[in-house]
């Protein structure tokens, strides 16, 4: 073996590798910094009161209470939006795969979904608001759920589409060869193979939904009460963060960071939980 000579191609290799490490460091570093800020600034204002009580009068001027209204509101909004998006999204994904496939129409639908994915959420918010005016619906949990469903739909459908496209063709035939009916193949084989991926898709949608402030600003409104009706306005964590950070009072700002921490923890718990479930389920899937 001769020693390696530093030719141009080796230099290029080292350069590209260096750039990759730099990018990874940059992304991981930013993430760590964000988490660090939220945790360090949020912890001091964190208390049992924050997560167990709605705001009392004068909360936004530094008086007592918590953001339970926003926690519950956000969970309602994101769960409702995700459920609605799944109800409409799964058939779209299945239709895309089984009927449209790689046809021109299939490509148009995928392109439209990708474009929808890139539209800023404030546009969804305004669109929802216009729609609400037209049908006479006021800012409410229901309106928020509908707009969040629209927001989550593209990312969910595209993620499920990828899962379904990766379904091995041989698998169905193997089950059919044993004398299964098509329903048995769908329920016992296809579902088992795809469920982990579908859970991931749902999670992506949920994550986008629960963290979004702009789309619920006009559509769900805000209230200091815990919402009990689909037709009443509801609070949400992203807006709670926004309102508190915009406050001139330092103690209210601190609570803004605490609210952000709560939101982060919710997303983290749900992510890790579904990762764990889908990991358990995907133990047997065919890669």
């Amino acid at each position: 073996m001769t020693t390696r000579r530093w030719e141009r191609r080796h230099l290029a290799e080292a350069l590209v590798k260096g750039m990759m490490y730099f990018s990874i460091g940059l992304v991981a570093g930013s993430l760590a910094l964000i988490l660090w800020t939220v945790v360090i600034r949020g912890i001091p204002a964190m208390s049992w009161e924050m997560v167990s009580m709605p705001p009392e009068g004068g909360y936004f001027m530094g008086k007592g209470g918590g953001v339970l209204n926003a926690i519950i509101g956000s969970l309602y909004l994101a769960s409702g939006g995700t459920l609605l998006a799944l109800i409409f999204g799964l058939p779209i994904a299945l239709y895309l795969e089984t009927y449209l496939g790689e046809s021109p129409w299939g490509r148009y639908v995928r392109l439209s979904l990708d474009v929808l994915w890139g539209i800023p959420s404030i546009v969804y918010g305004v669109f929802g608001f216009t729609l609400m005016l037209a049908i006479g619906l006021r800012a409410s949990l229901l309106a928020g759920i509908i707009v969040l469903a629209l927001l989550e739909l593209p990312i969910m459908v595209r993620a499920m589409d990828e899962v379904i496209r990766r379904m091995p063709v041989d698998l169905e035939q193997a089950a059919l060869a044993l004398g299964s009916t098509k329903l048995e193949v769908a329920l016992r084989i296809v579902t088992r193979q795809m469920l982990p991926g579908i859970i991931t898709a749902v999670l992506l949608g949920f994550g986008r939904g629960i963290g979004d402030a702009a789309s619920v600003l006009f559509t769900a409104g805000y209230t200091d009460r815990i919402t009990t009706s689909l037709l009443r306005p509801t609070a949400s964590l992203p807006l709670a963060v926004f309102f508190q950070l915009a406050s001139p009072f330092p103690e209210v700002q601190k609570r803004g960071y605490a609210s952000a921490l709560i939101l982060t923890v919710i997303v983290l718990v749900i992510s890790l939980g579904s990762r764990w479930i889908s990991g358990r389920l995907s133990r047997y899937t065919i890669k």
Partner: protein
Amino acid sequence: MQSDAEKGSMDAPTLKARGPAAEGDPHIRVRNLNAYYGKVQALTNINLEIPKRQITVIMGPSGCGKSTLLKTFNRFLELTDGAKLSGEVLLDGQDIYAKDVDETEVRKRVGLLAQRPSTLPMSIYDNVAYGMHVHRMKRSRKEYKEAVRHYLEIAGLWDEVQRRLHDPATSLSIGQQQRLCLARGLAVEPEIILGDEPTSALDPISSLNIESRLLDLKRVYTTVIVTHTLRQAKRLADYVIYMYLGEVIEAGAAREVFSNPKHDRTKAYLEGQF
């Protein structure tokens, strides 16, 4: 290699032969069978008799319709878009394409060993139990357990997997996966085993292992294998079908066809002129 094959047949439980082999009615009878993919004719006027409890090997160059013919025996051709078929395929005298025939029942009676092992997304145990569950063939967990063990033993896989029955099937090597597919297919108690180049994805030792299973199993099952390797055909075949461009050129007892082919095309193929 030889010892591996012998060992395999030793630890397999004794298979009870179902009556004398070969004599009597053919197991599968094909009458005036034509098949089309869209407008392309893939099979032309096939008439055949496939003997009971022997290994029938279908040979021929690529694209001659071997696999298509095989797919007509378990009603798999209809899974291909645009495939059409006319004529009859009789299983013990009953046409499997008759109107009142349930295709899942046909596929239970006619097992398939595919080109590449395609395990189901579940554990080793559940792969074997799946078909039995679907057809509700056993009554208790104990019966299922015994049956799973039985068929894994027949497939020569039991010793290798008995301590890891609940591992994913994908954790097995590809040769083991193919034997698992064999066990899975046998578990629904078919009468016929179809093999569509069942060893083409395997290494030589795994291939010989599968071959020795098939030779072992022919006492019980009628077996039809598509292969493109002549040497494998010679090792396995009791009965040979030679196809060319969608037609059966020659069919007969292996010894006769291999030693004294009647048709020029068969002769050319056997001499390696393709």
